[in-house]
């Protein structure tokens, strides 16, 4: 762990992508198999593998209590220090400076400490173990030991770069490593297979959930420059689920990879009649008389542990299948979407509710997309999902081969109250904005967004915001509320994070309203009104 910390520190100190990958791969190459597995988990900010059910359940409060106990600094000094540093792991390393036994910590020992943390149930017991750790190991090691607990190393080594580093360290191509990692659902497993020369043998496992491919949100059809290159499906308002079927056994996994089969005996019965072994991707929806019902109708089902099969069900469910990942031991994720679709259509030919095949359509112009969108809305669906022709199934990724287009609820005019620097090429610019609505003569925050403006606009905004700065909280620049943005969003949630009591879901910037002054911004009543009116559409 000491070495991992030193390497992570060097990776943080280089901004070039290739330099970072080179530093990581040089480190990984020298590790034995067990340490390689641990290092890949730790470098991706996880104490255990993605399929490991253990959870540390260590929050910021426990970390703070433990460092107060270990360092002897008072609670206020510790709170301020963490705020100024902006990262609790880094702050703990700095607060323990010169106060530890500086003992060495191996990756294996770190892993067993995480296991022990997961095993202890009471917060006080976890804090006691953390306190002992903080007093024992080197400050720089503690920094990264804690970053693994909080889940993000913040060294600019993205998942894709770590995959490339692992590929270089194991002597395979980045593409082969990435595909195997997707299939295995765990980069470490793929890397170990690569070392044994068995990369090709990794496949999707029946009854082990694979990660779902995710769609990137867009706000309008104009964001699709080439409509002819996309296949179009309705976006359903339901529960995303993977169906694993073989030999009369059915398991439905939801996002978060939980087994939800017990809530849907009707779907289980329909799916178990399918021939052979297969893994489907699709959506569980509430369904009556050929129409999708609002999502809320399903939630009461999930709330119950088991649903009796022969009771009249108030909310009949259906499974709308739209992808096929495995068929009779044939791995299909790497095959182009058209081929997967053809197999899926053959498999589900003539199927009846509650088993459905998601209709797929084509578009050749922005106008086509807009028409399809209106039709989907008329059918009671949320909008469209666009799937790039020729694309493979990219498990666990929001890579842009799938796009989702939902009708924004409305737009709000909001005022920027704070700004932060972005990552990557936008690093020197203020590209993350916290924004607020009016409440009396004050402004209260309702969300944060970091996309939707052009680079040129961001550059200009950065200058304006620096001139409006009134203070700083760690990396966050507090600004005088002057600049008005129009933001779109998917909904309004109650939130204790913001003083307003509300937070926008998935906000994105539509445009910079140079024509508006802060007093023209929307107010809290408007947000409250949107919150209240959106409930009936969901329930």
């Amino acid at each position, binding site marked *: 762990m000491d070495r991992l910390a030193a390497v992570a520190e060097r990776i*943080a*100190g*280089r*901004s070039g992508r290739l330099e970072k990958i080179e530093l990581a791969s040089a480190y990984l190459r020298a590790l034995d198999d067990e340490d390689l597995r641990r290092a890949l988990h730790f470098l991706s900010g996880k104490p255990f593998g993605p399929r490991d059910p253990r959870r540390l359940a260590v929050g910021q409060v426990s970390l703070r209590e433990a460092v107060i106990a270990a*360092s002897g*600094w*008072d609670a*206020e*000094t510790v709170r*301020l*220090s963490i705020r*100024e*540093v*902006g*990262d609790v792991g*880094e*702050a703990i390393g*700095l*607060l323990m*400076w*010169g106060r530890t036994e500086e003992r060495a910590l191996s990756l294996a020992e770190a892993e067993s400490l995480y296991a022990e943390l997961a095993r202890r149930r009471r917060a006080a017991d976890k804090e006691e173990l953390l306190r002992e750790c903080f007093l024992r190991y080197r400050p720089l090691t503690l920094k990264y030991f804690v970053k693994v607990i909080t889940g993000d190393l*913040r060294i600019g080594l993205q998942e894709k770069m770590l995959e490339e580093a692992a590929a270089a360290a194991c002597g395979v191509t980045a593409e082969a490593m990435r595909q195997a990692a997707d299939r295995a659902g765990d980069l470490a497993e793929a890397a170990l297979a690569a070392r044994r020369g068995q990369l090709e043998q990794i496949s999707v496992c029946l009854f082990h959930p694979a990660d779902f491919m995710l769609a990137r949100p867009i706000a309008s059809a104009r964001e699709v420059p080439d409509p002819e290159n996309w296949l179009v499906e309705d976006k359903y308002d339901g529960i995303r689920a993977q169906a694993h079927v073989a030999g009369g056994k059915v398991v439905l996994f939801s996002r978060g990879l939980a087994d939800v089969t017990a809530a849907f005996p009707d779907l289980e019965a329909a799916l178990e009649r399918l021939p052979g072994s297969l893994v489907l991707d699709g959506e569980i929806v509430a369904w009556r008389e050929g129409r999708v019902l609002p999502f809320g109708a399903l939630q009461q089902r999930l709330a119950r542990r088991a649903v009796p099969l022969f009771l009249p069900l108030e909310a009949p469910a259906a499974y709308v299948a739209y992808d096929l990942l495995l068929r009779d031991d044939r791995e299909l994720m790497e095959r182009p979407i058209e081929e997967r679709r053809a197999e899926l259509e053959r498999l589900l030919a003539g199927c009846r509710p509650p088993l459905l095949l998601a209709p797929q359509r084509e578009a050749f112009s922005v106008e086509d997309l807009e028409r399809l969108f209106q039709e989907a809305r008329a059918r009671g669906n949320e909008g469209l999902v666009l799937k790039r022709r020729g694309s493979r199934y990219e498990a666990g990724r929001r890579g842009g081969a799938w796009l989702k287009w939902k009708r924004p609820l409305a737009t709000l005019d909001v005022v920027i109250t704070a700004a*932060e*620097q972005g990552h990557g090429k936008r*690093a*020197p610019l203020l590209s993350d904005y916290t924004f607020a609505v009016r409440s009396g003569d004050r402004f209260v925050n309702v969300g944060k967004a970091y996309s939707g403006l052009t680079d040129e606009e961001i550059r200009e905004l950065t200058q304006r915001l620096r001139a409006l*700065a*009134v*203070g*700083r909280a*760690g*990396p966050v620049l507090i600004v005088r509320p002057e600049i008005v943005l129009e933001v779109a969003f998917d909904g309004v949630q109650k939130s204790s994070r913001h003083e307003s009591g509300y937070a926008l879901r998935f906000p994105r910037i539509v445009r910079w309203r140079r024509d508006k002054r802060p007093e023209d911004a929307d107010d809290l009543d408007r947000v409250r009104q949107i919150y209240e009116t959106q409930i009936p559409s969901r329930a």
Partner: protein
Amino acid sequence: MRVEFTGQGIYLADLDLWLDPREPRPRAWISHAHRDHAGCVHGEVYATAETLAFYRLRHGDALAGSALREVPYGQTWELAGARLAAYPAAHVLGAAQLLVEWRGRRLLYTGDIKLRPPLCGRATEIVQAERLIVESTFGLPIFHFLTREQARERIVAFARQALEDGRRPVLLAHELGRAQEVAHVLCQAGVPVAVHSAAARYLPSYAAAGFPAPGWLEWTGDAPPEAAIIVPPRLRACLALRGLRLRIAYVSGWAALDNARARTGAEELIPYSDHADFEELLELVEAIGPQEVDVVHGYTDAFARILTLRGKLARAPERPRPVGDNG
């Protein structure tokens, strides 16, 4: 002695003397030449010879009506019945602490101060006093800085490695103090340097004080020569040059925190400062041994509370000002 903390400077009413006032005043003590301490023209100014030289460089003819009183280190002078003396503070060239003895009590105003010996300039002298006014720019236990030996090694190794990798090394360093220290250690190590004009103007004074940067070039912001480039952080926009492969280091107390990367665009963080780090501040207060401490600049509330918890009579009399770039 009456001490008033006004937000525009510290006022010693019995002597009609202002300490580092931020607005024009009849009579002022200027602890060192940074803009936030020496930004105004006053009627009568007491300061060390080096500080006065920088002060003249900055204000030029505007000083025609001012009386500039040069104060040698360690020598006592009299003012309105008090005995005053300046002692080295190691912060930047010319920086001084001010000791005021009045009616048998000693008041010490540190100005900006560093306890460990600096790369350039005099080491801080410890002066004992019953009452202390101390700065706390880095008054939280998260700030740990390199010693001058470690800093010299890091600065030189960074520049050499960058040149070896085919990158142009850039060192972001405050224009008065750090920039000259960086230029001095790089030139001593035989690494060619180009210093931004805003910092280059102070190099002759450093050379005259025995800290030369032999062979330095001035950089005016156009195509830079084959050398390590020294640029003040506030002017880093001038680095937006096309086609140059740069590697940027940030030499500052603020470089102790990783968030400095996002703020400055630097890859390498070299936490070396002309201020005391947290441990030095504690050590300094212990050594001065005051009965009463006023904390000014930076994390005043936090540092005053830490001193209070350690049994000192300490307070933060002013509202904290926003933290700047001159750490």
